[in-house]
């Protein structure tokens, strides 16, 4: 089942999934916040293209709406909001020194292999492409989680969280050509409210510990020193 024998549509989907996987890897290793947000916007863009492509090939209308929704949300609104935060806090200059960066990248790769291994049983019920696309989306989710674990900046956590959402959207598009309309709207609404709340919380955190470093927030613990 090599790539040449597939029609144009599946080839496009596969390349798109490869690119999305690449962007999440890029985000993993990124120290600077502004660049991180830019790569996240790129991932949003790729996601919109895949949705558009899928909508075009199956020409059902609601996929177009979800493509527009994703574009406006994931490419325009959230990156803009995050960038404004970073600039207000003028954190765009300091680079987060990622400790043991190589081990994080290696574990990212192993997560990718692991997600392929996990989704192996699905192979005998659906086509090869489905397995690859799903595996990539699972790895995007896992990498998003790894991104949150390895970074100390709150903004990086938000980006990680949003990239997990991207991974989920990608899985939905690829596996079942998008969720039912109601669910699509609900999820988009939740993501929007989450983004707004993140903004509010940035404000509160800055007022309470006047830095967005997550490790400073560990007053609530039960380990007596």
């Amino acid at each position, binding site marked *: 089942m090599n790539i040449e024998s597939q029609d144009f549509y599946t080839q496009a989907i596969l390349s798109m999934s490869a690119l999305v996987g690449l962007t999440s890897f890029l985000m993993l290793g990124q120290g600077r916040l502004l660049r991180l947000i830019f790569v996240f916007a790129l991932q949003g863009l790729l996601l919109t293209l895949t949705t558009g492509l899928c909508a075009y090939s199956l020409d059902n209308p609601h996929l177009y709406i979800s493509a527009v929704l994703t574009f406006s949300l994931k490419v325009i609104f959230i990156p803009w909001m995050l960038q404004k935060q970073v600039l207000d806090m003028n954190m765009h200059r300091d680079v987060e020194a990622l400790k043991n960066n190589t081990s994080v990248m290696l574990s990212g790769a192993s997560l990718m292999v*692991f997600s392929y*291994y*996990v989704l*192996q*049983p699905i192979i005998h019920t659906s086509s090869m492409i489905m397995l690859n696309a799903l595996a990539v989306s699972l790895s995007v989710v*896992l990498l998003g*989680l*790894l991104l*949150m*674990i*390895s970074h*100390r900046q709150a903004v990086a*956590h938000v980006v990680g969280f949003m990239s997990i959402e991207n991974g989920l959207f990608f899985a939905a598009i690829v596996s079942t050509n998008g969720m039912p309309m109601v669910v699509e709207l609900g999820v988009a609404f939740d993501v929007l409210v989450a983004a707004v709340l993140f903004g509010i919380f940035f404000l509160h955190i800055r007022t309470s510990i006047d830095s967005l470093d*997550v*490790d400073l*927030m*560990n*007053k*609530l*613990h*039960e*380990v*007596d020193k």
Partner: protein
Amino acid sequence: MMLFLAYSAVIFSFASGSIALVHLFKPEVNKQWVFLLLGLSGLSAILAGVGGLVTSQIYVDTLNLGLPWLPWHIHFDSLSALFYLIIGIAVFSISFYAPHYTHVTQKDPQSFAVLSLFTGLFIGGMLLVLLADDAFMFMIAWELMSVASYFLVAFDHENSANRRAAFLYLLMAEVGALLIILAFGVMASFADDFTFDALRASHLSTMWMSVAFILALIGFGMKAGLVPIHVWLPEAHPVAPSHISALMSGVMLKVAIYGLIRFCFDLLPEVHWEWGVVLLVIGTLSAVSGILYAMMQQNLKRLLAYSSVENIGIIVMVLGLSMIFLANHYPEFAALGLLAALLHSFNHALFKNLLFLGAGIIHHQTHELNIDMLGGLIKRLPKTSFLFLVGCMSISSLPLFNGFISEWLAFQTALRVDVLDDGVLRSIIPVSAAALALTAALAAACFVKVFGLIFLGVPRSRHAEKAKEITDKRMLAAPAMLAGLCFFFGIFPSSILHLIDNVAKQLIGSNLPPQSVLSFFSIAPVSAQQASYSPPLVLIGALMAAGVCFWILHRNLKTSVRIAPTWDCGFGGLTPRMQYTSSAFTMPLRRIFSPAFLIEETIEKTMRSNTQSNVAQVRYSLHIQDHSWIHLYQPVEQGVNRVAKQVGRIQTGNIRTYLGYSLATLILLLWVVS
């Protein structure tokens, strides 16, 4: 009819509790109703008990409380009837004692309401335990009893020692109840459901039966206060109001014994002699160490609580004997053992209640429970001291009183050991009988100390000096009634023995050996020529002898008695401090049995000026610690704290570690599933 009486006893006790609650909100409801209902509950319990024993039928019923498919099954046979009688007598005497006692000590209505509410619940819980015929209702009644008595132990929760004792008490009750649930669970897994009839029909392998037995023994033993797990008892019982500690010490321990008997003799399909040996050993250990620790106590109520441990040890020892005989196919001697155990629990309930009520009166009049601060009360509280003397004589099993009858029957059971063929058993049992004799003698010594130091001699403190006899007639009526019963059953034991005999008939299927004589005049448990004892004859002989020698000495009484100050060997006045204190009285025994205690003696000398020679003042302090506290309770507590400390490290406070946990669990589960 019996069931009606049994139910009315329970309902009356709950009613007395609820009236106390109503009284809290509407003070015009008369307080006396609470005690009247309590008395009615005691009376109906006595009637139900006696009726159940006389008719010796089994009454079965179901209440549609509890789960729809597991309603509450009620079972009232002669074993529950006997314990109904015990509880009835105790509650009836309490209902006379409590009014004046609570009137004086509990001023504000809120604490009175709490006290009477939980007394009602406590008594109702105990009565329900006796009626239960399925594990579900048994456990509900069992822990209702524990919770209600917890509130009573934590009654005056001002000082922290009471709170600690109450917490320890409830913790032990909870752990005991969990073990009992596990024991029922083990049996139920081989039967179809949780009713006792199903458990009786369940067929377990001997291994599982022994597991169930051990769990039940620890569970019930924890509540009864057998040695290694008894430490909560002397902490919890003394802190409750005295008529409650009388109920708890006298009667609640018996309900635990009832549970043990019901489980071992009734539910388990057959009995093994190894269990009997286990019971025998634990019983002996509890008896000896119980009385040894009782000797060393200064607080009167702690002393009485430890002596309860001793008496429970004796009961469990005799139960072990009866189990050994039952396993070796000698049902008559097993019946004799069971008879001795049940009679001793009956007698113990009587005289322990009497002693605790006496202690309550002493505490009430002198606000002092430390034996070293009392003394000379016999002249100030003549009636109480006479009743307390009767209690002391029966607990140290002197011939004319009921304690002696059950002690005598216990020895008779032990002496029947010659019938067994297993050599090891025939050597262990006499040794444990000797330990029983040692316990009886130590009990006599302990209660000589108690009565001698409290009532005789010269008052050691201002409180003891100012004490006056209580004026309330009803408060004295309760111990007087109990003392009368102790003396009556000491002289005419066959009246109660007939009733208890058909309990053994129902449980083991056989009563005393055929040639046994339980006539009004004398009792011979095995056969007339084996051993017989006729208390009325002894009484008549004693009265005759006393009369004769009194008549001889007072025939030509020329010289009446001369009262003179005590002779002080000529060199200076005698002071009360010269009298023997409790630690002095028990010093020889403490030195002889020193390995049994953890003794910390400290002597501080303060020198006058800087010379090393003349001593201004010497302070001697003695503290006795219980072995099982150091070797059993504290290691468990520290273990749990250490493990909790390790577990606490999960909550590091850092969000990234939490996300790490989430990722790790996800990967682990995915790997497990794939």
